[in-house]
């Protein structure tokens, strides 16, 4: 394996050639916000929160799917990036209906945390107030599409880890939504094993257990790398 040397925020670093900028940054405690990325699932570069700047290039690249290059100089926290990241969060708030005060995930939500961490203390964009459906047909779980940020973590965990591929994404742009089977009610799904992995990886209050009230839905994202390591060492 060959190694690359490069810089992140003026820090001289080296890493294996197939490492991503995000991996290296995390190893060195350099904060890059992420939402769709989850350790243990394949990265998809969907949410754009992890965008970083490469010196000499005007294009921003997603750190979760970009491999390090020899001589590369990465900037992770420029004013331009901070502005775009706040904008991404504001757009997610505008598109969904995120009333944290009455959400099952209040206080345990990746989106809520990122808003705070990135300094989003109000929204400059108008709210769309779309009325999106809630599917509570499953006997144990429910999905509130108003809280879904379309990160596709549920889709990936269901396919890559559970092997059921119950979840998928339908439509384009503002009409996109995650669906179960061929857009059947979740409770009628023939492929869903009711394992609950999607609930645990969902970063927001979109997927939750029915028994949970406001602020009670604490997710266990950490089970994934554990599961993966156990499988690999078997």
């Amino acid at each position, binding site marked *: 394996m060959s190694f690359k040397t490069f810089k992140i925020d003026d820090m001289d670093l080296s890493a294996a050639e197939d490492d991503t900028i995000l991996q290296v940054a995390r190893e060195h405690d350099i904060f890059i916000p992420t939402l769709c990325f989850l350790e243990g699932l394949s990265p998809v570069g969907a949410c754009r929160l992890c965008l970083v700047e490469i010196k000499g290039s005007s294009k921003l690249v997603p750190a979760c799917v970009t491999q390090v290059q020899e001589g590369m100089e990465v900037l992770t926290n420029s004013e331009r990036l901070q502005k775009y990241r706040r904008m991404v969060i504001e757009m997610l*708030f505008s598109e969904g*209906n995120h009333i944290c*005060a*009455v959400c099952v995930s209040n206080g345990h939500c990746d989106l*809520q945390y990122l808003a*705070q961490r990135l300094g989003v203390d109000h929204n400059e964009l*108008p*709210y769309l*107030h779309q009325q999106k459906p809630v599917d509570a047909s499953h006997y144990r779980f429910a999905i509130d599409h108003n809280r879904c940020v379309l990160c596709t973590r549920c889709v990936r965990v269901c396919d890559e880890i559970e092997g059921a591929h119950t979840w998928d994404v339908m439509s384009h742009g503002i009409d996109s939504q995650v669906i179960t089977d061929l857009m059947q009610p979740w409770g009628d799904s023939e492929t869903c094993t009711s394992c609950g992995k999607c609930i645990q990886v969902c970063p927001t209050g979109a997927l939750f257990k029915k028994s949970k009230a406001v602020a009670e839905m604490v997710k266990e994202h950490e089970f994934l790398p554990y599961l993966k390591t156990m499988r690999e060492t078997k």
Partner: protein
Amino acid sequence: MSKATFATVWLDGCSGCHMSFLDIDEFLLDLADKIELVYSPLVDNKDFPEMVEVTLVEGAVSNADDYEKIQYIRQHTRTLISLGDCAVTGNVPSMRNPFFVDEVIDRAYNENVTINPQVPHIGVPELRPWVVPVHTIVPVDVYVPGCPPSAALIKHVLTELLEGRKPDLSDIARFG
């Protein structure tokens, strides 16, 4: 030393932010030495003064009265603060926005009422079609998210303001 003039107003919110404000406990005593509360649901004054140093706004803008009031208050306030999620985002009151006002009124005053259903007309301001955050109507100087913002956070905001600094809460206050 002359005291700084403060006001608080209550638009479409649950009064929880005002409760949280009162929760600053003994700091209220310090505050009493430094500020004069010239207009608030907590004091008797009926008219908003000519000019107020700091106004804390609880609640979203939901009806004709909120809409008039907030514009008047902005013109007569130096530093306007959106206090709490309803003022900052619309929060729970804005959950009526996906519906038409007529539907909402019908639901509240007819559909779910068994005895003598009627829609109140006299002495109540008309609902606006959408519940909106304060800053979409008038410029806001400081945002204090939270439902409600904690007493500690409110204390921090007030302390900063009294020291003549603009509080930066961007990474200490969160929604919800």
